[in-house]
């Protein structure tokens, strides 16, 4: 029994991590909370639906199973460019006003939700998951690890690894970290902070799109999809702290495992309350979250 719960905990953590990863890098770099993040999840999920539809219509039936791979790609790309658009059209005006950017992006999220309702209709849409993700890995007669969950776990690991390589092994990543640590100094040294911001925001949104396409496998696909995950994602970021990938991983695993633990012990609704209370209590002890960049600056 505990084996299943452990797996469930890890699986839930992986979903939270995927959802919060994009949020954490935009927040870490720009101190901008993107309230439209949930709507990028929604866009990602709808892209899976659209890709599936296109495959059904135009591609040979034998190719159908591979549609999901394309969908992942499409979700990332569409969310990436929409994120870039949002940054250029809105967020860049608000860098010095983080609270205002929070409100403005919330307005954008609201419009995106309404737009989705108009395009795809109010009811949920259904996708057929590819046959290679059906079923699960049968360990014992009771313990079944669904392939979809394993796939999401793998997807998260791939995302984390590529993000790590990008941040710590490439020149672009190095300038991103430089901007994160000291924006003015980085600017003085010739890094185009504007460009770095734009790319970061786009990557964050792209990962959200990817997360959305993963959520399409296990949950509803509708215009309110984002609202179900957004506050959890915020809590992960606040708990984990920003500036290092380890922070968001810590946040996601803590909240995921605790949630599943309290859920199986008590009930689902009370579990969420307890976990949030724990997070607030934890912040009393470490106000900046689990990890924080060491800095001599007085004001964050």
């Amino acid at each position: 029994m505990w084996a299943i719960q452990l797996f469930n905990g890890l699986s839930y953590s992986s979903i939270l991590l995927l959802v919060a990863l994009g949020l954490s890098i935009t927040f870490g770099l720009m101190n901008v909370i993107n309230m439209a993040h949930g709507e990028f999840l929604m866009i990602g999920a709808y892209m899976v639906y659209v890709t599936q539809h296109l495959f059904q219509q135009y591609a040979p039936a034998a190719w159908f199973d591979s549609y999901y791979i394309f969908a992942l790609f499409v979700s990332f790309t569409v969310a990436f460019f929409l994120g870039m658009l949002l940054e250029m059209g809105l967020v860049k005006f608000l860098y010095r006003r983080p609270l205002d950017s929070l409100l403005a992006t919330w307005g954008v999220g609201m419009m995106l939700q309404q737009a989705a309702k108009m395009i795809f209709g109010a009811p949920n849409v259904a996708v057929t998951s590819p046959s290679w993700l059906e079923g699960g890995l049968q360990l014992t007669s009771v313990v079944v690890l669904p392939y979809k969950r394993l796939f999401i776990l793998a997807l998260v690991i791939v995302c984390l690894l590529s993000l790590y390589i990008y941040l710590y092994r490439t020149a672009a990543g190095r300038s991103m970290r430089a901007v994160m640590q000291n924006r003015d100094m980085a600017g003085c040294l010739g890094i185009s902070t504007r460009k770095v911001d734009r790319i970061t925001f786009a990557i964050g949104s792209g990962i959200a799109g990817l997360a959305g396409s993963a959520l399409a496998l296990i949950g509803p696909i509708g215009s309110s999809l984002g609202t179900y995950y957004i506050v959890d994602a915020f809590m992960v970021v606040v708990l984990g702290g920003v500036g290092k990938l380890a922070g968001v991983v810590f946040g996601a695993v803590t909240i995921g495992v605790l949630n599943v633990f309290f859920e199986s012990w008590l009930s689902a609704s009370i579990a969420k309350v307890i976990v949030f209370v724990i997070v607030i209590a934890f912040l009393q002890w470490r106000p900046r979250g689990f990890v924080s960049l060491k800095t001599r600056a007085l004001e964050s």
Partner: protein
Amino acid sequence: MEFMEKWQEKRKKVWFHTVCFLFITMLLLAGCAEEGESQEADEEDGSQEDVIEVGILHSLSGTMAISEVSVKDAELMAINEINEAGGVLGKQIVPIIEDGASDWPTFSEKSRKLLEQDKVATVFGGWTSASRKAMLPVFEELNGLLWYPVQYEGLEASPNIFYTGATTNQQIVPSVAWLLENRGKKFFLLGSNYVFPITANNIIKAQLDSEGGELVGEEYTELGHTEYSTVIAKIKESKPDVIYNTLNGDSNVAFFKQLKDAGISADDITVLSVSVAEEEIRGIGAEYLEGHLVAWNYFQTTDTPENKEFVDHYKEAYGEDRVTADPIEAGYNAVHLWAKAVEKAGTTDVDKVREAAKGITFAAPEGTVTIDGDNQHLYKKVRIGEVTAEGQLNEIFSTEEAVKPDPYLSSYTWAEALTSP
């Protein structure tokens, strides 16, 4: 001199300020008043043109819009049908449509508007129990008439509401009895955390106790909850024969997807749902639901001549890809039943219509329905259907006759403790 000049300039500014403020305030007040007046003017025009105004109050925005928009469509279709056939009392019916916005105080506010300001003859509306509970005090205070089209948890019979959906003894109680007989004794109850599932499950628990069933688990999740792996682990551990599902909305999608992934199919454990109809099946995907059961009074596949016509009309009016479902049909019935009651009463006066409505019958798509004068619910047939691969419902059980509504379950001895405080 200098002082005078400055004082004059100062005065200019004072005027600017005053004009701005007054203008805005006037706008506000005038706007409110004006609208009231224009509505009244409409009303006068209305009586001259011989029309009857009725209210339609559903959520057209927000989370509940998914379900309620279709009911609104069916009600408008019924109004059209009646108008084409000459209207009621020789007058055309004109609907006034309001948006409840999935927010219960808004439902209360809008029903006050419809009754107090528009002075409509009757209102068709609501979906969630919460919206009905929010509207109820307003309708009782202003003596209005509300037609509520959705199955609900019973224990209510307001003289100002007609309930055209099922009460518990027309959906839940017979389906539990059927499951006990055909699928097994061990029940797992899963529901969203609000009044309908909680009340329904209290009834089911009492029934299981008296009819030899066994409760192996009970879980509630918030509306919009999407992570069911823990609940499914609990289900696996408790090994039920039947999962009785009162989840509502998006949670159903997540639950059925994750249930199938965990390797549980309809052959292993039957899930019977009471809030999943044809429309919801489309949003979940038939592949996840195939073989599972639902309990309603009406399916799109119900085999009556009236239903064939109803489905054809509905698709013609709103598109080939639309499906009909139980609450949609109940909303449609409500309009026709009201029209018949008004014809019989010869007036739209609420008290007279209520009196005339007793015993009125209508050849509905689900079969003939009759208004029970005692509690203003309908006699309805109970049906259990199995989800097919096409996402339609295949009837596997139906009562012979329409069942008499019994919102307080007074004919069941085991329910005594539930209904008396």
